[in-house]
């Protein structure tokens, strides 16, 4: 298990292994991995406890979750990511409770509230975009692109362009 204690692996090898994992899911369960969908699935799972009638009558939910809002393969992948990343960072000693990342601190100071509000709205915007585009970095960016899907490559390129522009604005004047 010594390889799990390393802080990071060679990016090309790590990427190659993610590609092999994609191949594995196509073979075992006949579907690509996605992450963003599991967030809205979780929301619907909570909604179905408190407002089941809303969930049953909502056309968007019926369309995007034909199996219903229960726990399925995709949701277990989503759960597993947290566990896997936790195990990995604990074993390498990299795990830490961090609210303000170092790079952010160098530009915007160590204020927690500013960072938390930005991260929260960043997450809201990101998920809204993912649901609108029909996928996230995992679904479109990696699994779409590897199938040579036009939607995947368009997503990949636009996300990079807008990400570069936005980070450039956020960190303008910083060397």
């Amino acid at each position, binding site marked *: 298990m010594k390889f799990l204690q390393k802080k990071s692996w060679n990016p090309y090898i790590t990427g190659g292994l993610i590609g092999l994992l994609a191949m594995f899911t196509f073979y075992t*369960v006949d579907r690509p991995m996605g992450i963003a969908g599991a967030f809205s699935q979780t929301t619907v799972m909570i909604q179905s406890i408190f407002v089941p009638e809303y969930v049953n009558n909502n056309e968007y939910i019926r369309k995007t979750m034909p199996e219903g809002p229960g726990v399925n393969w995709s949701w277990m992948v989503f759960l597993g990511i947290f566990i896997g990343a936790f195990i990995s960072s604990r074993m390498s000693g990299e795990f830490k409770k961090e609210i303000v990342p170092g790079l952010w601190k160098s530009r915007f100071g160590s204020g927690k509230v500013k960072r938390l509000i930005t991260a929260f709205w960043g997450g809201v915007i990101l998920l809204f*975009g993912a649901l609108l585009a029909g996928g996230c970095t995992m679904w479109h960016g990696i699994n779409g692109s590897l199938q040579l899907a036009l939607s995947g490559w368009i997503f990949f390129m636009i996300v990079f362009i807008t990400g570069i522009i936005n980070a450039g604005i956020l960190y303008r004047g910083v060397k």
Partner: protein
Amino acid sequence: MTGPLEITGIPRLILGLATGITLGILLDKGRLTKYETIVGQFLLKDFTMLKVMLSAVLAGSIGVYFLVYINAAELHITPVIPARLLIGSTIFGIGFALLGY
């Protein structure tokens, strides 16, 4: 969409969990769980994210198309809905740079 192996029920959920744990380890070892990696990429100072993603695309492309070639898998192409895709990915990129994860 149960796949040629027709794995259903609890074994399918356990398989999903194992897949997710593996993915979580890979994302962490690929440093994609760090703010500095994501924002560093968009600031064009750290190309880790692009290296990992393009390697995944290359390896996965060869792997998945091999499976399709031997009739062991099918493609799952998401169709292009121009307005949704363009606006959605633009919004996604903006949020991604703000959140940094």
